């Protein structure tokens, strides 16, 4: 059991989401930075599907009522070691309040956060009020259950995972790679050039549904009426005010704004690491390149998992 002493700004239970329900209007949801959650889960020996805590801007203060093995991945937290297994005795308190530059960090716990599966997932859908812990963000006093783990009794980790798996995006200007979107041709050449040449600033109103950007407006002449059509994770929608919105995990399944571009899947976790006021620039890549970057990411993670399994299997060897 984990007791929430202070909840932080927005701490939710998340896993890798609930695909399979988009045709019912249910967002895929799940962790915004799936790679950080997967890495943290791998460190504590969990399956990829285990649920953890997503902590945004200022994290929670937690008390562990039973001994626990946890790991953190994502934005660095002051005073806490990242990317390695932490063995906590019963009664230990862990403060994730000071997330550097108000980023996003994921806590995995051996055995996973135990909440009921709703439509095949433990992730919290805030707008719908279901999934996760009672369909809402954690509050002070909540007691969150932990699933059965492999029964690790000893601290086994003298190692940590390389930060290159989940590089923090600290530099001010980030380049996000995109493919042209289904309505790219609806935009005049000047607007298309603006997308490639201008810089955009991440706005503070950004949430789990979308990353709101501010910059030189991208105008769309709308050659015909837009019919609400399916959107994807990473769709770059352009509303009439010309300020683009990048759709994230909790976005709607259909959208009524023209989509000028789509962020490649290998860069979706990086979107989750952006903080308000950071600047981004978009770079167009080909589908072949996008698929290549995705394979590189998946291969790197598979290698990490295999390496960790190796380390864990040797633990306790004479």
């Amino acid at each position, binding site marked *: 059991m984990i007791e929430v002493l202070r909840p932080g700004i927005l701490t939710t239970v998340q896993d890798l989401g609930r695909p399979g329900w988009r*045709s019912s*209007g249910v967002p895929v949801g799940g962790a915004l930075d799936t790679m950080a959650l997967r890495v943290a889960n791998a460190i504590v020996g969990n399956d990829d599907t285990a649920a953890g805590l997503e902590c945004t801007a200022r994290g929670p203060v937690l008390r562990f009522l039973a001994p626990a093995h946890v790991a953190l991945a994502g934005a660095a937290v002051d005073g806490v070691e990242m990317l390695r297994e932490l063995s906590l005795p019963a009664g230990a308190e862990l403060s994730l309040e000071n997330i550097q530059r108000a980023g996003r960090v994921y806590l995995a716990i051996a055995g996973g956060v135990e909440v009921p599966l709703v439509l095949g997932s433990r992730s919290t859908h805030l*707008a719908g009020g*279901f999934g996760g812990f009672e369909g809402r963000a954690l509050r002070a006093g909540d007691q969150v259950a932990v699933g059965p783990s492999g029964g690790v009794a000893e601290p086994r980790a003298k190692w940590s995972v390389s930060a290159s798996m989940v590089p923090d995006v600290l530099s001010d200007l980030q380049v996000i790679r995109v493919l042209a979107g*289904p309505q790219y041709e609806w935009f005049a050449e000047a607007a298309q050039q603006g997308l490639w040449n201008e810089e955009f600033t991440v706005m503070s109103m950004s949430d789990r549904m979308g990353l709101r950007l501010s910059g030189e407006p991208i105008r769309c002449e709308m050659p015909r009426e837009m019919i609400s059509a399916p959107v994807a994770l990473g769709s770059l929608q352009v509303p009439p005010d010309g300020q683009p919105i990048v759709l994230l995990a909790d976005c709607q399944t*259909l959208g009524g704004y023209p989509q000028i571009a789509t962020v490649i899947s290998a860069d979706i976790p990086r979107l989750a690491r952006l903080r308000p006021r950071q600047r981004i620039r978009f770079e167009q890549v080909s589908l072949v390149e996008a698929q290549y970057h995705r394979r590189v990411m998946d291969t790197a993670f598979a290698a990490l998992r295999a390496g960790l399994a190796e380390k864990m299997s040797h633990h306790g060897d004479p």
Partner: protein
Amino acid sequence: MEYRHLGDCCVLVTMGESIDEGTSQRVARLAAALRSRWLHGVLDIVPAFSALAVHFDPTGVGGTDPMQRVTEWIAATSMTEVSWVAENGRTFTIPVCYGEECAPDLIEVALRLTMRPEDLVARHSSITYRVGAMGFSPGFAYMLGLPADLQVPRRATPRTRVPPGSVGIGGVFTGIYPSDTPGGWHLIGRTACVLFDPARQEPCLLRTGDLVRFLPRATFKETERLP
């Protein structure tokens, strides 16, 4: 049919350029055909009014060009159009209270349409609507068939919160808000029927292709049960 990619994990198939029942039926039929021969690695098949999206996990689909593999599967399925099974549209009669406490925008909309409110209610509840697409929020059904004389543009300022069960009209659509989301349609009634419940075997009451009629009821209390 036109194929486009929506990023590197989704194929978008566009099948028309307008919102009409014929197009949305063709989209729904292709969705049903794809579901009947599901490809490994495909996560979601999402039909909309004139387009359909197939979301997939590239690792699950496999190969060096999973996009190509998914596109070929869709193309091969669409070639067998004759065998597309039409998903049977079920018919629902949904009780709705159009009374003052349930219909904050009824009088204003009636004024704009130069109709008496009771005529608007009679007209709205005389039509059989067809679910053209699911989306916006869990269980939300965009219903087609609203007659031209009941069509009004969406509210200039959307409400930040719409009571669940509210029946709205906006543009060419009518529909019911399943949960308390923001909403830009005009609210002309409300039902106590639960449109979406994740704990139910079938969470959504409605699905694309279903036919819907609204049955006026004097009080909100009387809308709790489907007739």
